[in-house]
C-alpha cells in the first residue's frame, strides 16, 4: 500500500528529522496551528514569577490546591468549548452548573436521602436537559445563542434562588453527604495515585506509539521514533512529578496526601471529550460546522443534529462542573456568581487557544487555560495582590490570548 513520496513529500512539513520537527513546529506556531506552545511558555513565566515572589508557590500543598482550584475553571471551560467550536456561546453555563449542584445537594440531604449515584445522575440529567432545551430554542427558532443563553443567565439564577431559599436553610444548603464532599476534599491513597497515573500514562503512550506505528506500517510519513520516544518520556516525567507532588504530605496536623478525586474527574472529561472531537464523526462535524456551516450542510452533514449534540455535551459537562463546585464550596448558596464563572470559563477556553470565532480549539485548551486562570488567582493571593490587580491582570492575559487568536485566524486566512 506504499504511496510513492515523490509527489506528496511529507506529513508535517519536513518533519522527518528532529531538526525538521523544530522547524515544522515553528511554522505551525506562526500559522496559529500550534496554539499550545506559546501559552505553555506563558504559564511557565507566570509560575517562575510567583515562585520568585513567594517560595510557597511551588510547595506541594499549594500546587495541589492550585490544581483543585483550576478544576472548576477547567470543567466549565470544557463545557463552553463544545459551543465555541461551533462559533456559539453559552452565557448561562455558570448558573446551569449551580442548578445541577443544587439538585444533587437537595436530593442528598436529610429530607430526601437519595443514594449518591442517583442524585449525581439526576443532577447531570437536569443540566443536560437544560442544555438540550436551550439548544432546541436556538436551533429551531434560529435565535442567537448569545441572547438565548443571556436569558438563561438571568432565568436560571432565578430558579436557583427559588430552590435554594425554599429549603429554608438561610440561603445556603450544605453538602452533608460524604461522596459528594470527597469529590474535591477527598484523596486517592498514595498507592492508588501511582496506579492511576501509571495506567493513564500507559494508555496515552500506547495510543501515541500505536498511531505512529500504524502510520509507518501504511507507508505514511510519521514523526521520527526518537521524537515520539521523547514525547512519551516527557509525559512520563510530568506524570511522576505530579504523583510526587500529590503524594507529599501537605497536612499540618494530620497526614494529608494523595491525588484529589477531582483530578481523575478532569482526566476522564478530557479523555472523553478529546476522543469525541478527534476520533468520531460527531467531532469532525462539530469542527466542520464551526468552520463553514454551509459547506458542512452541502456535504450532507445533518448540521442541526450536531449543533444540538454540542448543546447537549455542554449540559453534561456543566453538570459535572457543578458537582465539583458544590463539593469545593461545601454547599451551594443563592449567592453563586454564575455570571463571573461563565466569563472565567470563556476566558479559560480562549486563553488556552480555543477560538471565539468557531472551528478551532481543543479540549486540552480548556485545561491549560483553566490552569493559567487558577495560577493567576492563586499566585496573586499568595503575594497579597489586591482583588483589583487580580482582575486587571486576568483581563490583560485574556486580551493577549484573544489577540493571538485573531492574528492566527488572519494569518490562516491569507492565501
Amino acid at each position, binding site marked *: *500500500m506504499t*504511496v*510513492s513520496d515523490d*509527489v*506528496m*513529500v*511529507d*506529513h*508535517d*512539513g519536513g518533519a522527518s528529522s528532529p531538526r525538521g520537527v523544530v522547524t515544522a513546529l515553528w511554522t505551525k506556531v506562526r*500559522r496559529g*496551528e500550534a496554539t499550545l506552545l506559546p501559552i505553555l511558555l506563558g504559564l511557565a513565566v507566570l509560575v517562575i514569577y510567583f515562585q520568585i515572589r513567594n517560595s510557597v508557590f511551588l510547595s506541594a500543598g499549594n500546587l495541589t490546591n492550585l490544581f483543585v482550584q483550576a478544576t472548576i475553571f477547567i470543567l466549565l471551560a470544557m463545557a463552553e468549548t463544545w459551543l465555541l467550536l461551533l462559533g456559539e456561546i453559552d452565557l448561562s453555563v455558570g448558573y446551569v452548573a449551580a442548578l445541577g449542584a443544587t439538585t444533587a445537594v437537595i436530593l442528598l440531604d436529610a429530607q430526601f436521602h437519595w443514594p449518591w449515584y442517583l442524585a449525581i445522575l439526576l443532577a447531570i440529567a437536569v443540566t443536560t436537559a437544560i442544555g438540550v432545551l436551550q439548544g432546541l430554542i436556538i436551533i429551531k427558532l434560529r435565535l442567537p445563542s448569545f441572547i438565548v443563553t443571556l436569558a438563561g443567565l438571568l432565568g436560571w439564577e432565578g430558579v436557583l434562588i427559588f430552590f435554594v431559599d425554599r429549603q429554608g436553610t438561610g440561603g445556603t444548603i450544605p453538602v452533608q453527604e460524604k461522596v459528594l464532599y470527597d469529590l474535591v476534599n477527598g484523596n486517592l491513597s498514595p498507592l492508588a495515585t501511582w496506579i492511576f497515573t501509571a495506567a493513564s500514562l500507559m494508555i496515552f503512550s500506547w495510543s501515541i506509539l500505536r498511531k505512529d506505528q*500504524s*502510520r509507518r506500517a*501504511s*507507508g*505514511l*510519513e510519521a514523526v521520527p521514533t526518537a521524537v515520539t520516544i521523547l514525547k512519551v518520556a516527557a509525559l512520563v516525567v510530568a506524570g511522576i512529578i505530579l504523583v510526587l507532588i500529590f503524594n507529599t504530605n501537605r497536612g499540618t496536623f494530620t497526614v494529608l496526601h494523595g491525588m484529589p478525586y477531582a483530578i481523575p474527574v478532569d482526566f476522564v472529561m478530557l479523555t472523553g471529550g478529546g476522543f469525541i472531537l*478527534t*476520533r*468520531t*464523526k460527531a467531532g*469532525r462535524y462539530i*469542527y*466542520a460546522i*464551526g*468552520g*463553514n456551516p*454551509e*459547506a*458542512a450542510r*452541502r*456535504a*450532507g*452533514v445533518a448540521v442541526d443534529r450536531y449543533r444540538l449534540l454540542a448543546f447537549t455535551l455542554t449540559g453534561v459537562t456543566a453538570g459535572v462542573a457543578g458537582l465539583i463546585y458544590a463539593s469545593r464550596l461545601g454547599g451551594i448558596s443563592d449567592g453563586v456568581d454564575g455570571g463571573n464563572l461563565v466569563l472565567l470559563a470563556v476566558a479559560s477556553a480562549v486563553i488556552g487557544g480555543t477560538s471565539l470565532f468557531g*472551528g*478551532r480549539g481543543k479540549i486540552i485548551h480548556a485545561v491549560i487555560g483553566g490552569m493559567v486562570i487558577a495560577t493567576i488567582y492563586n499566585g496573586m493571593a499568595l503575594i497579597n495582590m489586591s482583588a483589583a490587580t487580580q482582575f486587571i491582570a486576568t483581563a490583560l492575559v485574556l486580551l493577549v490570548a484573544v489577540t493571538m487568536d485573531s492574528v492566527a485566524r488572519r494569518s*490562516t*486566512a491569507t*492565501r
Partner: protein
Amino acid sequence: MTTTPGSTGSAMPREDMGTGDPGAVAPPLLQLRGISKNFGAVEALKRVDLDVPRGVVTALIGDNGAGKSTLIKAIAGIYPPSSGEIYWEGERVSLHSPRAAEALGIATVYQDLALCDNLDIVQNMYLGHEATKHLTLDEITMELETRRVLNELSVSTVRSVRQLVGSLSGGQRQAVAVARAVMHESKLVIMDEPTAALGVSQTAQVLELITQLASRGIAVLVISHNLNDVFAVADRIAVMYLGTLVESGPISQYDTTRAVELITTGGGLRTNTDGSTR
C-alpha cells in the same frame, strides 16, 4: 496523460460524441429535453435541450443572467425544473434534491468551493463520507486514498495532505474541491467558474485538471466567462442567451468571434450545428 487504472469507462473518441441519433451506440450520459424553470412570473429557463456526453468537456457559456447558473442548479437538484425531462444514461430520472443528483453520480463544484478552511485536505475530501473502523475515524485509509486521488490527478503542488485548506492557494483549493468530486466516483462533474478567481499559472493548473477528468471518462460541464479558457479546454460548447440554449456543438465549429456574437445577441436563430437536439 494516460488513462488511469481503476477509472470507470474510457474516453470516447471525439467523432461520435454527443449525438442523439437513433443509430448511436450509447446515449449521452445526461440528456436534457425541454427543461423550463419559472420563478414566479420570471422564466429563467425556456425549453432547454442539452446533451452532456462522457469523457468530454462541455463548456456552458453566456452572459450574466443568461440562465447558466439556474441550469446547473437544475441538474444538481437544487432547483428542480418546472417542466421538461432529464435522462441519465438513457433512463428518465427526477433530480428533485441534491441528494438524488449525488446518488446518480453528479458532483457540483460551486464557485465558493464549499470547503472548510479549518480542516485539512483529507478531512475536507471526506467530509460527510468519513471512513470509519470500529466506529472511530479511519484516518489512515482516508489519508492514503486522498494521496492516491491527488496523485492520479497530478496535483503536485500541495505540501502535505494534512495541510489546512485555509492555507492553500486558490488553484489548490479548486483542486481539492474537484478531487473530492472524483473520489466519490462521480460520473458528471459540474464546475461553476472554476478559474474566475485565479492567476495565470493557477488557471493553467485547473485547466489541466479539467482535461484529466475528461480523460478518465468523466463528463465535465464547465461554466466560464473566460473564452480563452473555454477554447483551451472544452470539446463541446453550449451557448445560453436569455434563458434559452441557442446553440451547442463541437468546439471546432466555433471561433471566438462567433462565440461572442452568440453570447451577446443570441445569434438570432436557434440551431444546433451538429443537429443533435431540437
